[in-house]
């Protein structure tokens, strides 16, 4: 009997040749994180602009869901951890070169801010609400008084969180599809677009929906521009990056990416929103839901495809 013994560092289960460690939890978190970041940014921005009473759903209603969205997203991240009980150790150190460290600290700051912000508007949205304990009422009164000073860090940290959802992937140098700095702004814009969709769904004010619709069209155009540049950058790059791009330009992700993300998730909702602005009757729920589904599928595809791409062949 002839036996052959192979000794190789190239066959590590779940890591090489293909990464197979990030499942539904990560893209779901990226989606929820981007959505929360977008809502908080708009809430902070319109407060700074002094439009909180004209943009009620943006500033008051939509932020109410953010703490739940963030906590759910963090729970998904927690589920993904291998050593779950050691998650707190992320907070025993500050390491500027660690993307997970950045994310942990940004979330550590923005989650309490979002809870404060949402809590301060609960009484306005639900007039019968009673905080019961005196300390809670004191905190509420303090937050209401200092809203403008909270709005600034909230908007800024929201942008950092939105960019971070892309940086988490792009810091992964070993995967060519992720290793591009355009992912940060791309995920930020995409998250803001999903947030605009949620605000449009929650708003009953025609004027507010029109403003968010206009912003959303602009965001979609910017997002399409980033997607084009993402692939342009890859195609002008090395062989591995060209291979990474080809997964979406003829490869196995082409049809779902262009059908569900680019056409049904971006271009089609933008066209519907343009019709809405032109005065046609469009049920806003359709473009809003399509944007949300497109944003979710986009993150699933990027995480899935990125794990397949690699440097060594």
């Amino acid at each position, binding site marked *: 009997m002839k036996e052959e013994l192979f000794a190789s560092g190239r066959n590590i289960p779940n890591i090489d040749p293909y990464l197979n460690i990030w499942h539904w939890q990560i893209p779901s978190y990226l989606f929820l994180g981007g959505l929360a970041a977008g809502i908080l940014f708009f809430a902070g921005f319109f407060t700074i602009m002094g439009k909180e009473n004209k943009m009620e759903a943006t500033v008051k209603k939509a932020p109410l869901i953010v703490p739940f969205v963030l906590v759910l997203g963090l729970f998904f991240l927690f589920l993904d951890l291998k050593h779950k009980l050691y998650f707190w150790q992320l907070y025993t150190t500050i390491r500027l070169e660690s993307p997970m460290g950045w994310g942990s600290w940004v979330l550590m700051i923005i989650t309490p801010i979002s809870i404060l912000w949402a809590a301060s508007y609960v009484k306005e949205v639900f007039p019968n609400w009673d905080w019961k304990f005196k300390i809670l009422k004191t905190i509420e009164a303090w937050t209401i008084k200092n809203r403008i000073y909270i709005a600034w860090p909230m908007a800024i940290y929201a942008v950092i969180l939105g960019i971070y959802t892309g940086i988490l992937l792009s810091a992964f140098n070993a995967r060519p599809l992720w290793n591009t700095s355009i992912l940060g702004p791309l995920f930020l814009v995409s998250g803001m677009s999903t947030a605009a969709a949620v605000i449009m769904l929650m708003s009953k004010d025609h004027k507010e929906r029109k403003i968010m619709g206009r912003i959303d069209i602009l965001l979609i155009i910017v997002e399409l521009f980033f997607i084009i540049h993402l692939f342009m950058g890859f195609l002008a790059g090395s062989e591995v990056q060209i291979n990474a791009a080809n997964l979406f330009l003829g490869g196995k992700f082409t049809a779902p990416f262009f*059908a569900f993300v680019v056409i049904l998730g971006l271009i089609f909702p933008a066209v519907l929103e343009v019709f809405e602005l032109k005065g046609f*009757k469009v049920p806003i729920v359709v473009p809003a839901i399509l944007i949300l589904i497109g944003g979710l599928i986009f993150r699933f595809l990027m995480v899935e495809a990125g794990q397949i791409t690699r440097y060594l062949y």
Partner: protein
Amino acid sequence: MKKIKNDGSFYLNPYLGGVILGTVLLLSFYISGRGVGASGAVKNTVAATVNAVAPQHVEKSAYYSQFAGGDKRPMNNWLVYEVLGVLAGAFISGIVFNRLKLKVEHSPKITSRRRLIFALAGGLIFGFGSQLARGCTSGAALSGMAVLSFGGYITMVAIFGTAFVVAWILRKNWI
């Protein structure tokens, strides 16, 4: 060109609609190399669903195993995406022609319920027939005739010939 109805909605001139549909078919052949279709998308969706729920049944079934099971990917099909496009296009058309309302269109002499039951029954028979004929009005008749397929012509004659007779029998549901 536009026939305006009382409620503000209007329809495109049917002849112009036909020319546009023909152009779509031509473009479909030119761009994708395939004709248009509708029942195929439903068939593939059903096959994919059955494969997800009862994969063993798909393996054994002479019909389902043609489309699903093994490494076949029924949802990764041109018709599935085409129908998604049809839905999106129809939605825009509904917006432009002010016809985007949730309603059941039926003769004033019958109830919505009766109309829906007949629609369901007709749909079931048509779906069954489309699988016997290997295509429906779009896939077999329209796309088939466009490439001068004899089967396409027979399907067209059978569909519209039968419809002509059955419409007379069931005319009380409409007039």
